[in-house]
């Protein structure tokens, strides 16, 4: 037995310690499936990697040292175990990020089956499976960074634009788990969970790394990474990013009059941001600190602001810190974690005779413990508990007239959240797996919630997986919805009696391996959302959040993926969906009936370049005042790895065909459609030193 411990120690250093954070997040994602039991013949997700080209006979003649140094294409353990997850997990790799020139988390998510991104030229909003409410701050999605929650505690916002905590240069992989996952993750895991796996010193081979890019509209960005690792598996990484874009002139027909600059907002679509990431691990302990800050100019004159006033902007910054301890033994894994976080927002809104300052600050700390047990035959038990104290949830609003300030709002509403969950994966037979779990959440400011989930996974053959998933999820009202009250003209009322909104989801998934390099996935879903928290009015015309609507979404999705021997990869998905507001009987706003995505990467013959072509079709959507037409967006990137020694180059053209398209505006916009960027360019150069 002691021998076994020896090798466990060796392996801990070599594998677990390197990726302790990842492993646990994986453990959670795959809901307690031991990664070591994955079947090697199930490469469900195809990762295209940069490898040297070898024929059959050449490889055998390679010295063994060279062989061990080769990168291999194939599936990692996580990807293999995807078959057992109670969802149809979607993954984007760092290779995809490079080849398709994705600049934000939103860009990556937009390429995924059933996901849509809309942008109001201030924030990016995420929608899934036909549900995408304008201006909801992505509160119905849970964002994790290496398994650590990154939604703030006031808006519960999952930031997916440049306000997102992690710069894309530092992303190793993005896992998107569609469907309700409150049974493990609690509030916010309403329609989906996004887990960002960040890079480690290993990803940079322990070498310094720098990337610079320039683009249209005065875009420039620089990232620098320093990393270090030692033979004992200790790793450390620090990175910093700075980004700036001047912005183009944007024309809004709604403001086309001589008094409002003929509808042209002069270079107000500006953006600047910065990121810092620090992470390290030594043995079972790992730390992660991330910080982001962003300023975004507002070109849309939202909230009836004065049009074309360059002062109007929002500032957001967020810091997350976590220290984790993970201990793995023969038949169990224990993860303990302490977290702290802070998010601040300050908006400056301009009016003819005054300035409005709107702001918030939220700070929280907490801890969680997860325990995965493999002790019993045919059972994989995952249990956990969390506590979070939101010790500051401050919101304020004031008007500045001349030098005088009038306070409209100043409130602080601390909150405590406590939760416990348990889940068991039961192997009924060789083919049948049952995943059953539930979670109880207590929030001091609102009602408690109970979220069960039952998934049956059937694998009649090693190539076919069928899943039936039934679950219930909830989202607690956030502090903004409950306590933001500016009782003045153009203001809004709070509602402290808001209840959590709930969703019942039913899903059927069929995953089929067609060959060792192609795969087909289809999913049919039905989500019934009740008690939906929506902005309405109090009867006197003042906006107020109420538990009002019942929205039914149902649809069907297909995805096909194929990888060719020359590293070419095609991924195509199609979703048809229908979202209907049951209380009014009308189609939901910002919900397209059809979404199609195509991502194709092909090596360009006789050059070091890989071409990444991305096409996204979003069907016609209903806006608040009329329909917003469908669009097909095309992006093209040429990416070359090692164009010079240790240098990578990428050239991107976004919106290649210069398609004029837009996203629906929300209640705060006069525009029914917010026009998005036309054709833009970017060039990026990166180097390891």
């Amino acid at each position, binding site marked *: 037995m002691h021998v076994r411990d020896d*090798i466990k120690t*060796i392996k801990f250093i070599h594998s677990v310690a390197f990726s302790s954070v990842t492993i646990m997040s994986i453990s959670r994602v795959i809901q307690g499936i031991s990664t*070591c039991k994955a079947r090697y013949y199930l*490469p469900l997700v195809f990762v295209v990697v940069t490898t040297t*080209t070898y024929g059959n006979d050449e490889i055998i003649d390679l010295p063994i040292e060279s062989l061990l*140094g080769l990168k*291999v294409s194939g599936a990692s353990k996580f990807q293999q175990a995807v078959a057992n997850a109670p969802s149809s997990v979607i993954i984007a790799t760092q290779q995809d990020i490079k080849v398709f020139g994705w600049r934000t988390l939103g860009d990556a998510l937009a390429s995924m089956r059933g996901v849509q991104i809309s942008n109001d030229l201030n924030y990016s909003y995420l929608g899934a499976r036909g549900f995408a409410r304008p201006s909801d701050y992505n509160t119905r999605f849970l964002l994790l960074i290496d398994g650590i929650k990154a939604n703030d505690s006031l808006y519960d916002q999952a930031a997916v634009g440049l306000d997102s905590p992690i710069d894309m240069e530092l992303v190793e992989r993005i896992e998107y788990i569609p469907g309700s996952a409150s049974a493990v993750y609690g509030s916010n895991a309403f329609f989906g969970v996004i887990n960002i796996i960040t890079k480690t010193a290993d990803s940079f081979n322990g070498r310094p790394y720098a990337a610079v890019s320039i683009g249209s509209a005065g875009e420039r960005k620089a990232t620098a990474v320093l990393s270090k690792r030692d033979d004992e598996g200790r790793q450390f990484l620090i990175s910093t990013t700075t980004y700036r874009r001047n912005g183009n002139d944007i024309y809004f027909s709604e403001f086309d009059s001589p008094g409002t600059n003929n509808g042209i907002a002069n270079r107000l679509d500006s953006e600047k941001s910065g990121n810092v990431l620090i992470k390290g691990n030594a043995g079972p302990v790992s730390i992660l600190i991330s910080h982001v800050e962003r300023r975004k100019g507002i070109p849309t004159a939202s909230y009836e602001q004065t049009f074309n006033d360059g002062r109007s902007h929002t500032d957001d910054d967020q810091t997350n810190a976590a220290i984790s301890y993970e201990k793995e033994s023969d038949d169990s894994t224990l993860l303990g974690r302490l977290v702290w976080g802070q998010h601040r927002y300050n908006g400056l809104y301009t009016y003819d005779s005054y300035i409005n300052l709107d702001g918030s600050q939220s700070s929280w700390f907490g801890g969680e413990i997860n325990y995965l047990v493999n002790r019993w035959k045919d059972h994989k038990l995952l249990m956990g508990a969390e506590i979070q104290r939101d010790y500051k949830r401050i919101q304020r609003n004031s008007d500045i007239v001349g030098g005088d300030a009038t306070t409209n709002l100043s409130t602080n509403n601390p909150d405590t959240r406590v939760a416990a969950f348990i889940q068991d994966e039961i192997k009924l037979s060789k083919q049948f797996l049952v995943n059953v779990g539930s979670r109880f959440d207590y929030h001091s400011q609102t009602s408690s919630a109970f979220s069960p989930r039952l998934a049956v996974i059937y694998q009649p053959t090693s190539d076919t997986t069928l899943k039936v998933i039934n679950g219930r999820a909830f989202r607690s009202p956030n502090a903004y919805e409950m306590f933001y009250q500016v009782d003045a003209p153009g203001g809004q009322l709070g509602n402290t009696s808001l209840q959590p909104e709930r969703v019942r989801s039913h899903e059927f998934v069929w995953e089929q391996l067609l060959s060792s390099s192609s795969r087909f996935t289809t999913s049919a879903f039905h989500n019934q959302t009740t008690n939906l928290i929506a902005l309405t009015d109090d009867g006197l015309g003042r906006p107020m959040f109420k538990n009002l609507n019942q929205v039914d979404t149902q649809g069907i999705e297909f995805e096909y993926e194929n990888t060719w021997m*020359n590293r070419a990869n095609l991924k195509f998905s199609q979703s048809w969906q229908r979202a209907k507001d049951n209380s009014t009987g009308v189609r939901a706003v910002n919900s397209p009936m059809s979404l199609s995505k195509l991502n194709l990467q092909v090596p360009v013959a006789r050059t070091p370049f890989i071409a990444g072509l991305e096409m996204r079709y979003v069907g016609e959507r209903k806006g608040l005042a009329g329909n917003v037409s469908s669009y097909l967006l095309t992006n093209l990137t040429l990416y070359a790895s090692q164009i010079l020694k240790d240098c990578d180059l990428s050239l991107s053209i976004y919106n290649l065909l210069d398609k004029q398209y837009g996203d629906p505006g929300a209640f705060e916009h006069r525009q029914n459609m917010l026009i998005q960027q036309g054709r833009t360019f970017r060039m990026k150069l990166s180097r390891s030193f």
Partner: protein
Amino acid sequence: MWHRFVKKWIVLSCMVFSAGWCGHACAQVVDEWKAKAALIYNLILFTEWQVAPTENLGICVLKESALTKELSKFQGRVMRNAALRIIKVSESSGFSQCSVLLMDTDSLKSISNIRKNLEGLSVLTIMDEEDIWHEGVMISISVFRDRIVFDIDLKSAQASRISISSKLLRLARGVIS
């Protein structure tokens, strides 16, 4: 709307087709199974049996897989005067013709049975895609961060009168001795 939709996807299908065409025309890339097969070839090359295999060097597999498919491409190659042969065996019999036994995680279910049947034989046992050490497995291969790594249980090998070269011991990620 449907008309436009169909038109659009006809264009896309053409693109897919052209990508497929390039796929056949372009060169091959090392995939996981090719690289693993080549590694196994090397492992055998640097292993010595007390009683050297004559005529045939049997690489026994318990079932067909992508890896065994790649391995079978080395069938017939001569290594130290013995020709490599891929032999399909069951968990309970046929082990006497094996110099090497390739296992995977599925074999773990019957590992005790396999171990019993290997008793007294000099067979190099190789486990694919397993990160946890199991008694009786001499070399385990896995992929870590897109690269192939292997671990050696020297004690097990010695007990079966198999010696593994110092080169392999040096290149292994972990060694039990």
